[in-house]
């Protein structure tokens, strides 16, 4: 760590409760400058609360944090001047046009007239919003709104950007585009703190991932380090007959049958040798498989590996 520049975020022992509910239960984390950091976790893990605390929206009940070199409790305005936040809920003014929204933020960033106009034009162009610039934001599609939202966050050229679930609710194409935009920002040397519930998103974008569960960091590392901790994905076998499903479930001890869909999930990473073994076993027992597919590790697998519970249980908790 010694040769890294000063961290963009250092949080230690952050705590937050809403009434009886403990949302953050002592979170420590460090985000290096000019990197993409992903906070991964299911709904209700405390991701949004974490972002709201670090972006000065709500105070923590305990613990300390330095954000962009400023103490969160002592110098909130110093933090605000250095960060940009794109929250989960659209922060654009629906009654204003795209260009007016950007101009509003330019004015609030105290850019002078000319610099403000230049920045607005540049961002409209960069996010493909030139044609829509004169239309009210209420007429924008989901993807366009999200891009306008991000463009507004960038007006003040922040050094650190918080993105709370930036692709939730977007169609696959808009999602790809958002990923490209995020990578482009990181290439400019901006530090990005993003939250997501998708392992593939964290994997695609982040240099480091921290897994948040019930208000605690339960795992942290590079995507590769994390994936190495996961035993692997699973092979999904689809049967035509319940009898075949039952036979296979008995044969492949420990696999979980889904009676309704006639599906059997067999754990394993799906490499060629183990697949061949699996198929041989089924053939020897004369069990007819209708369809076979291989699933790569997902958030469920990560969760199961580090907490011993599936995400659905974490959500209910």
């Amino acid at each position, binding site marked *: 760590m010694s040769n890294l520049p000063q961290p963009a975020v250092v949080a230690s022992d952050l705590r937050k409760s*809403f009434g009886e509910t403990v*949302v953050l239960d002592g979170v420590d984390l460090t985000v290096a400058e000019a990197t993409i950091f992903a906070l991964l976790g299911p709904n209700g893990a405390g991701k*949004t*609360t974490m972002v*709201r605390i670090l*972006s*000065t*929206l*709500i*105070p923590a009940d305990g613990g300390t944090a330095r954000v962009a070199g400023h103490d969160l409790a002592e110098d909130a*305005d*110093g933090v*605000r*001047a250095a*960060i*940009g*936040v794109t*929250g989960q*809920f*659209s*922060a*654009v*003014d*629906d*009654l*204003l046009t795209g260009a*007016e929204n950007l101009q*509003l*933020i330019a*004015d*609030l*960033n*105290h850019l002078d007239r000319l610099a403000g106009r230049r920045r607005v034009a540049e961002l409209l162009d960069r996010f493909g919003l030139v044609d829509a610039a004169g239309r*009210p934001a209420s007429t924008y599609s989901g993807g366009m709104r999200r891009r306008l939202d991000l463009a*507004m*966050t960038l007006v*003040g050229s922040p050094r650190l950007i918080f993105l709370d679930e930036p692709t939730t609710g977007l169609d696959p194409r808009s999602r790809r585009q958002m990923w490209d935009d995020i990578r482009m920002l990181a290439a400019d040397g901006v530090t990005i703190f993003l939250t997501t519930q998708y392992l593939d998103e964290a994997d695609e974008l982040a240099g480091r991932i921290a897994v948040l569960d019930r208000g605690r960091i339960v795992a942290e590392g590079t995507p590769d380090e994390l994936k190495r901790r996961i035993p692997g994905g699973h092979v999904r076998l689809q049967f035509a007959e319940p009898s075949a499903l039952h036979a296979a479930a008995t044969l492949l001890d420990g696999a979980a049958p889904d009676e309704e869909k006639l599906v059997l999930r067999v754990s394993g990473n799906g490499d060629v040798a183990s697949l061949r073994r699996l198929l041989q076993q089924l053939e020897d027992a004369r069990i007819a498989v209708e369809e076979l597919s291989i699933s790569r590790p997902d958030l469920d697998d990560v969760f199961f590996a580090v907490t011993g519970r599936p995400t659905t249980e974490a959500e209910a908790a």
Partner: protein
Amino acid sequence: MSTLAYTVGDSTTMLRRNLRRLQRYPSLTLMLVGMPIVFLLLFVYVFGGQLSHGLDTALSGGHGGRAGYLNYVTPGILLMTVAAAVQGTAIVVAMDMTGGIIDRFRTMAIARSAVLTGHVLASLIQTLGSIGVILGVAVALGFRPDAGVLAWLGVVGVTTLFALALIWLATALGLAAKSVETASNTPMFLTFLPFLGSSFVPASSMPTGLRQFAHYQPFTPTTETLRGLLTGTPIGSNAVIAVVWSVGIALGSYLWARHLYSRRRAA
């Protein structure tokens, strides 16, 4: 730039934003201006002829009949315009607070007071504009105020102060509301208060309990002050009481609104 310059600059930016929003959402303004116009027409043309019989001509600018009642009722209608317009304030404030954009403002290094100041100033402009429209309608119907320059300045002063008081109150109500629907209902009691005062009939004609309420509530002294300035009826201590009410409501509501705004929201 100094802190003061930032505060003024940010407030001006917010004012511009809010005026533009009002311009994009004209149905709200039309609805809020429409209400006092309907009441003015209703009271002058439907009830006015009958109500004027019980009215001392000393209270109606020396005129009798419908024309006299128009003189009597116009000051109260002007204040009702304020009460109607501030419903819009509560709505737009609540729209902002329940939307995502407020979080963007809160995470930016802008003057703390700018968001609320922008709303209040935009509402003040909207309210004074609405009053101008209503006054124009009243004049078109035959209202002939005999106020001099000083009296007109007094009218502007009293109305502005009263408008500021109700706008800050509506801002606080808008901040306190959990939804835009709630915010559109809570300030509605303000539009009923003119009826329980001297806006439409003299309070002296009411039964004891109601008369006492009418006598002490803020709309009555403010109406009497405006009526005196516009049509020359006696003002007495009403001007002082009206100013004290306005300053009191404005100050209390400002502090309440500031408290609500800086209270950070959970989750």
